[in-house]
């Protein structure tokens, strides 16, 4: 039983909480991505850029009003609006074409948005101050309350969105459109508006996650890319188009990364998610957390 003493239990506990916290943010990013894919067949390369835009809108709002919560709301609405605009101008003309063209178009959008941010805000990272700075004591270790709140808030947004899909009128329209676009149109559902709405909601979720995560890292024009890559991995591992699968996969991967960063450097811990992806592709290419397709 000697090895039991060698395990750093307190660090392990901290890393478990860390893993769940980043996992929830990742889940928020990935669920927007998987939503847009599952419903519209669009692989949104620009998703990370909406996250970055959300963070920048929050930076501007906080400078003006000094209110984090107002910034969160304005950033979500703002990115949602930008998302709807992007959808109407670039993706609607591509409806009915090969889904691959949507990858190309959103890649172009990502280039433009990223370089626009670089041009407007410069290469120096901005800061979003934490809205409160308390910490709680867990087994004689301090842990920042704000981090816990991020996890809770992300869970609340995803949960609220799930309820909306399940019971809201628009939610039901969205699910109907997923199942059969033409039939939904025939039943009088305004399908073009539903699609634009889905894209706006997905973008708003990305924007909100950018604001929530902003205080933990700096806000810069390239912050979206790291997230989009991990979100793609999560979406593939969780099963494309599956909301629950994405959430589970996000937490699973983040926990693995958090544990492994106890022993290796963070950059190398990033390789863990790649290994999970490779194993998933080898043994269960439909996704880890979805039912086996018939």
């Amino acid at each position, binding site marked *: 039983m000697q090895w039991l003493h060698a395990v750093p239990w307190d660090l392990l506990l901290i890393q478990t909480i860390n893993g769940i916290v980043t996992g929830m943010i990742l889940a928020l990013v990935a669920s927007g991505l998987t939503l847009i894919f599952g419903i519209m067949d669009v692989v949104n390369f620009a998703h990370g850029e909406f996250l970055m835009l959300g963070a920048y809108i929050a930076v501007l709002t906080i400078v003006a009003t000094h209110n984090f919560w107002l910034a969160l709301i304005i950033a979500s609405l703002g990115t949602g609006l930008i998302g709807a605009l992007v959808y109407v101008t670039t993706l609607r003309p591509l409806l009915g074409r090969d889904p691959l063209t949507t990858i190309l*178009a959103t890649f*172009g959008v990502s280039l433009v948005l990223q370089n626009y941010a670089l*041009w407007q805000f410069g290469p120096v990272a901005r800061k979003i101050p934490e809205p409160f700075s308390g910490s709680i004591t867990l087994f004689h270790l301090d842990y920042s309350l704000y981090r816990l709140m991020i996890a809770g808030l992300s869970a609340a947004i995803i949960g609220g969105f799930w309820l909306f899909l399940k019971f809201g009128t628009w939610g039901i329209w969205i699910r109907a459109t997923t199942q059969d676009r033409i039939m939904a149109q025939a039943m009088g559902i305004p399908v073009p508006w539903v699609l634009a709405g889905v894209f706006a909601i997905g973008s708003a979720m990305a924007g909100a996650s950018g604001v929530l995560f902003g205080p933990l890292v700096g806000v810069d024009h390239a912050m979206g890319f790291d997230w989009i890559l991990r979100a793609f991995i999560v979406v593939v591992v969780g099963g494309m188009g599956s909301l629950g699968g994405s959430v589970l996969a996000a937490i699973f991967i983040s926990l693995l990364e958090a544990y492994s960063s106890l022993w290796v450097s963070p950059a190398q811990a990033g390789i863990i998610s790649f290994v999970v992806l490779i194993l998933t592709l080898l043994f269960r290419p439909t996704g880890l957390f979805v039912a086996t397709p018939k």
Partner: protein
Amino acid sequence: MRDRQPLVFWTGFAIIVALLIASPLVLPPFWARFVTEILIWGLLAMSSDILIGYTGMVSFGHSAFFGLGMYGAAFVLLETKPPSLWAALAAGLLAAAAAAAFVAYFSTRLREIYFAITTLIFSQIFYIVIFTWTELTGGENGLTFSRPALAIPGLFSLRFTPMVLHWFVLAIVVLSYLLLRRITQSPFGMVLQSIRENEARTRAIGYPIERYKMVAVMLSGLFAGLAGVLYALQNQFAAPNFVFFVLSGEVVIYNVIGGIGTLVGPILGAAFFLLLREGLSRFFTEYYLIPVGLMFIAMVIFMPQGLLGFARRWLNR
């Protein structure tokens, strides 16, 4: 009329090649070097066209093959004494082929959209490995080395002046084009195109789709690695920037601008993009990607065939 079309094609081909041979003799050094670079990027874009244009799979991971070709050549040039061009070429191709086999094995299991995503993710794996494995790759600083001589032992030995390098690159690019053109017109190439047109039907006829796709990815990776070796020779360094995904994105842009499924289109796209960047960066400095991105989106929407799309059937004759 029909008999005369190949004649027109080969005449045009000969004229363009002749112009490219003459270009370093007449152009000032800056532009001569620019043309060499266009040829190298054009080769990379052409390799990617095998996937995008002929098989219908968009690869966002070509930077990995390009970068491995580059680093493979760099290792050999640093380690062997005296540095041998042919050993470097072989090592670069081997490294790129190994990476391509790895990526092909995993990513061809997935449907088209997932293919794009997984190639992107895999290229990032290579990027992280190269970036963090500092002892071997020099990490962020990359590797610097000197050019070997263009030599066949016992026959001749030439120093790589910019002009010799240009002709060497040109010869390889032209040979690659002829080879790739032959491949796309072969029965194998026809199967690839039928996968692009209708995957389910090709499978139903009895072709092992996965195997064909894997070979296509490896072939494409091999030529991308070749481009990497040439770039390493030209610039005498290998850096992790060239493995980063931005490069893969640019390759996709070259293809879409120039016209996918034409082989020469991507080279034209590369030339157009690089000239545009040269021109725009005078006005927009480093933000030239904003107008380029807008133009790219407009081309995807309004002109999916690209600049050479109108000539696609004719070029593949």
